[in-house]
């Protein structure tokens, strides 16, 4: 049977505050275990949590940037469950009355832009970390470090509007881009400051109601999210095709084995008995606060995209791709400053650079080709040092070695052949070797012109100046 895939994503992002959400302990990463703790985040009896105002400010920014409606009145709730990384026995979160609801973000999917709804954005505290002595003497214990306990998080829940693993990945990139533009989260998936869980179900095409979903966890990169979803689509398709039913459960992605595995045992705990936290007073956000936050927002991806289209005269699709991440947009504008031909830069970044980064699953920050090197290479095309075709070889080499284009051209002998005599010699050779084609050409098969150009380029390993080749061929054939 043909199925439609329904995906919704839940993102947890660590907010860039100095102190925790309800106490004054530091949020700095990498400290010695349990040195950033106090009676409040340790969950001692009788303590009083007090909300960090910066957390609200940052969450408001995210809510406004994702076009959410802001609740004038919102409150915190206790989510009750037992786990060793949660010293209080409950997590302070928002349940009813979250700070923001009903927003959306725009993504690019299959060359078109698509809106993905945001169900809600709320604030909560992070849990601690469990460490294990793998292969050591103490394998039968878990070690608990509570430094992360109480670090502020925002949870952003999407509507089930996502239809493919590719769209899921685009959504995450766009969302992370927005958080980075706003400077509210560093977006590091490997370090866990940007985490994603996915809900996925299948339904026969044409059916209105949703099928049974599973929840996927433990995916710590965009690529893993995509792979886990692809695996789960296959798994659920097989189950449904076999006439069986999908079981609603949480499954963990095992990146090493490339499978999702059922997380048995934790299921019966899904009764969190939420209730309003009596220690925290309600939060009231008035219009003035919202307006002030709006004014403080930087240029966001959507706005930057529109500006790029206007200012640089590049296609909307290119502008959308270039502005998804703040760093990529900065890279592009840096290049344009050095080499003021926005369209040429856009082509190189969109085609060569992004393709290369995608192959290696790398971010622009890790790109070995700096704007300076790229601009220098483009100048070399303009001044005739290299041909456009050879430039691709130079680019690949720059990407691999990070060396300057001049050096690569010299090292590999890629200088463009602009010497008239040298080209004439090659053209003569090509014509002599292909008498049949020459005859046909002279009989009127003028399409063969391209064949001769190709042969000359092949003979010179792409180094001949194409204009010169055209000119000489015309002279000798016509």
């Amino acid at each position, binding site marked *: 049977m043909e199925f439609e895939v329904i995906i919704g994503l839940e993102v947890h992002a660590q907010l860039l505050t100095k102190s925790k959400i309800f106490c004054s302990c530091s949020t700095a990463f990498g400290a010695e275990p349990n040195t950033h703790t106090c009676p409040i985040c340790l969950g001692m009896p009788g303590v009083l949590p007090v909300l960090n105002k910066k957390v609200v400010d940052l969450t408001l920014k995210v809510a406004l940037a994702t076009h959410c409606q802001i609740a004038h009145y919102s409150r915190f709730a206790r989510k009750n469950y037992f786990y060793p990384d949660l010293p209080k026995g409950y997590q302070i979160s928002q349940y009813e009355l979250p700070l923001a609801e009903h927003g959306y973000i725009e993504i690019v999917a299959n060359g078109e832009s698509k809106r993905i709804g945001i169900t809600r954005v709320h604030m909560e505290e992070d849990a601690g970390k469990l460490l294990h002595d793998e292969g050591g003497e103490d394998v039968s*214990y878990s070690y608990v470090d509570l430094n992360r306990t109480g670090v502020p998080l925002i949870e952003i829940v999407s509507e089930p509007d996502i239809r493919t693993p590719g769209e899921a990945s685009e959504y995450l990139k766009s969302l992370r881009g927005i958080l980075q533009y706003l400077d509210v989260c560093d977006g590091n998936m490997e370090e866990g400051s940007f985490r994603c869980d996915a809900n996925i179900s299948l339904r026969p095409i044409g059916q209105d109601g949703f099928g049974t979903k599973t929840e996927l966890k433990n995916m710590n990169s965009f690529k893993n999210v995509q792979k886990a979803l692809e695996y789960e689509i296959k798994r659920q398709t097989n189950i449904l095709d076999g006439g069986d039913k999908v079981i609603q459960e949480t499954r963990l992605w095992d990146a090493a084995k490339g499978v999702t595995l059922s997380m048995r045992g934790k299921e019966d705990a899904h009764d969190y008995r939420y209730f309003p936290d009596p220690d925290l*007073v309600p939060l009231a956000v008035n219009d003035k606060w919202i307006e002030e936050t709006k004014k403080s927002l930087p240029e966001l991806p959507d706005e930057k995209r529109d500006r790029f289209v206007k200012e640089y005269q590049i296609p909307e699709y290119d502008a959308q791709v270039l502005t998804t991440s703040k760093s990529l947009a900065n890279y592009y504008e840096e290049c344009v400053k050095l080499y003021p031909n926005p369209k040429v830069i856009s082509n190189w970044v969109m085609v060569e650079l992004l393709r290369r980064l995608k192959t290696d699953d790398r971010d622009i920050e890790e790109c070995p080709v700096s704007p300076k090197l790229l601009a220098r290479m483009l100048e070399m095309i303009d001044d005739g040092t290299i041909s456009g075709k050879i430039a691709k070889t130079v680019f690949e080499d720059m990407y691999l070695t990070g060396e300057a284009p001049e050096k690569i051209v010299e090292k590999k002998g890629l200088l463009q052949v602009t010497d008239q005599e040298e080209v004439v010699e090659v053209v003569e050779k090509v014509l002599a070797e292909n008498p049949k084609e020459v005859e046909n050409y002279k009989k009127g098969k003028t399409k063969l012109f391209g064949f001769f150009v190709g042969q000359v380029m092949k003979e010179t390993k792409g180094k001949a100046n194409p204009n010169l080749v055209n000119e000489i061929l015309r002279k000798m054939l016509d």
Partner: protein
Amino acid sequence: MKITKEEVDKVAKLARLGFTEEEKEKFASQLNSILVYFDNLGELDTIGIEPTSHASTISNVFRDDKVESSISKEESLLNAPDGKRDCFRVPRIIE
């Protein structure tokens, strides 16, 4: 009966508490009388009144985003029944 023995069972399990059969019977009946007592509130007309979540009417109590000194890790671990390597130690939780 508003609360059955099975519900007491479930809540006890969620709270990691163990009770004898007699205790469960007793708590079921006690919880019932509490809930029956709360039913008295049903006699009041509460249409148009927002549910109360807090006894006081204040809102927006904040602190600034400032780091102040935490307690030492030794103090942190002082109440822990088992600690090692600056960490709280518990029976292994993930296989």
